[in-house]
């Protein structure tokens, strides 16, 4: 809360900028919808490879949800390589609190917290567009979408942690981010190497396509069980890796002042 209060005070010094950031968030999500609306010949009844515009609303909402998870969970780690390379991680480590919380907290501003609000609006719109959805399945889908987004962000966080050993890593994380466009459209038709890549290596399939498919009952129960198991396994693997690297990275770290 202290971080949020501090960041709020800073933001209020630039009110116009803050308003525009919020405007950008709204236009960002509107553009997602507009994209498919224009390509559907300005119609809500268009279909793309078996997915209707209204069903695509779920994909759009869940892909935005992953942005919210990024803002809250992994944005602090996005700046980590810079702090490590410049030997200025001390500014975090000297704080009387857990370094993970401090790293996440220092960038946690009300501006960042607006993103989940926009995501929730998008999820609400997606629900409204598909009125015959089973509420329980919808809830399960939202939970799985959040879990998928956490997994996606954990992968990026692990790569950021490699900066303790390799140095500047932001370009590698940017490479991962460039895959990010793929979560904005259904990935269920992908097979072969591309399908494997976007399911297990850069696990974008679990961000939007998988939860949306469950909500829309496009997959069999077997597939749901298989998908949940795979998601759980991947989350466990990447979280263990994250913990291990974060702990040994902190031990390995040398600040500018300790040289």
């Amino acid at each position, binding site marked *: 809360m202290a971080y949020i209060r501090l960041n709020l005070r800073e933001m209020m010094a*630039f009110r*116009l900028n803050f*308003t525009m950031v919020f405007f950008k968030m709204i236009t960002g999500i509107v553009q997602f919808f507009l994209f498919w609306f224009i*390509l559907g010949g300005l119609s809500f009844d268009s279909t793309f490879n078996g997915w209707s515009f209204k069903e695509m609303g779920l994909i759009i909402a869940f892909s935005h949800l992953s942005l919210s998870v990024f803002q809250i969970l992994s944005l602090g780690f996005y700046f980590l390589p810079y702090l490590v390379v410049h030997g200025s991680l001390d500014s975090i480590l000297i704080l009387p609190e857990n370094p993970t919380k401090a790293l996440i907290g220092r960038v946690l501003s009300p501006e960042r917290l607006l993103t989940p609000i926009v995501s929730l609006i998008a999820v609400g719109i997606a629900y409204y567009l598909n009125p015959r959805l089973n509420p329980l399945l919808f809830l399960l889908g939202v939970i799985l979408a959040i879990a998928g987004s956490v997994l996606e962000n954990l992968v990026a966080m692990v790569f950021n942690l490699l900066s303790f050993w390799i140095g500047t890593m932001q*370009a*590698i994380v940017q490479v991962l981010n460039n*895959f990010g*466009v793929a979560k904005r459209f259904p990935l269920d038709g992908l097979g072969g190497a*591309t399908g494997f890549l976007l399911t297990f290596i850069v696990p974008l399939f679990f961000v939007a396509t998988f939860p949306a498919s469950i909500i829309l009952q496009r997959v069999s129960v077997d597939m749901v069980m298989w998908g949940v198991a795979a998601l759980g396994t991947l989350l466990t693997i990447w979280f263990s890796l994250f913990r291990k690297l974060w702990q040994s990275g902190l031990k390995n770290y040398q600040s500018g002042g300790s040289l």
Partner: protein
Amino acid sequence: MFAQLPSSLRVAIRTKMVFRLNYLFILLQLPIRVFVTVLLWDFIVGSSSQFMGLSRNQILLFVSFTAFLQFLYNTQETMIKMEQDLVQGGAVVGFTLPIDYHVKEIFEGWGDFLIYFVTGSVTLAVVISFMGITVELTLAKGLLILVLILLNTVLQYLIVSILAAAAVLVGRIGGFGSSLVGTLMFFGGAIIPLALFPQGVRDVLVLNPMSSMVDFPAMVLVSNGLDVMDIIYRLLVLVGWLLVLSLVNRRIWRVSRDRFSAPGE
């Protein structure tokens, strides 16, 4: 002015080679962006050979080339850097130099631009040939695209420069700049080719400066036969924006310089 180009290039190459691995990954972003964009449009177009008046090959070539252009312009990062310099008072170095700060910045940026242009072009050529996308590139088309990229680099620079100078007047402006640039980019062909918009809307959108930066060069590349009148019209729009923004830039920098203060003053 161009005498400083070789030294700028040398400095840029030396800087890149300090972080070779990082630079390699920066380059790798382009093929991945092209790959994912082509994947997306493959999904949209489906198995049909035509989509809303454009052939499958034209669409895939268009979106690959716009990915390259965006990689090249990299507008927002430059803007953030300039804004930070100005708001945090770092621009005092630029203001005290005998040449204008923004001219100095252009020199510094030239080396980076040339490296990204050459390596990016080669990477793009390899990726699109690997994906089976065909290109009909004539000498006239190539020269026109080259001229457009150069003019648009100036246009992009002017937009960044104006927004950065405005930061001196109104404080932090990154949110405003990125939302403006993002919206203009969306309606400038960066996400959807303008040819896929309804005719009436398209006629308005070609007046958007970002359509000169992205949609115009990409359409020149994918067009089977160039419509000379259309090219002249869009060139006039581009030159018009360059003139208007040059005047605004000159004016806003004068005002900003008068009001600028930095630590140490």
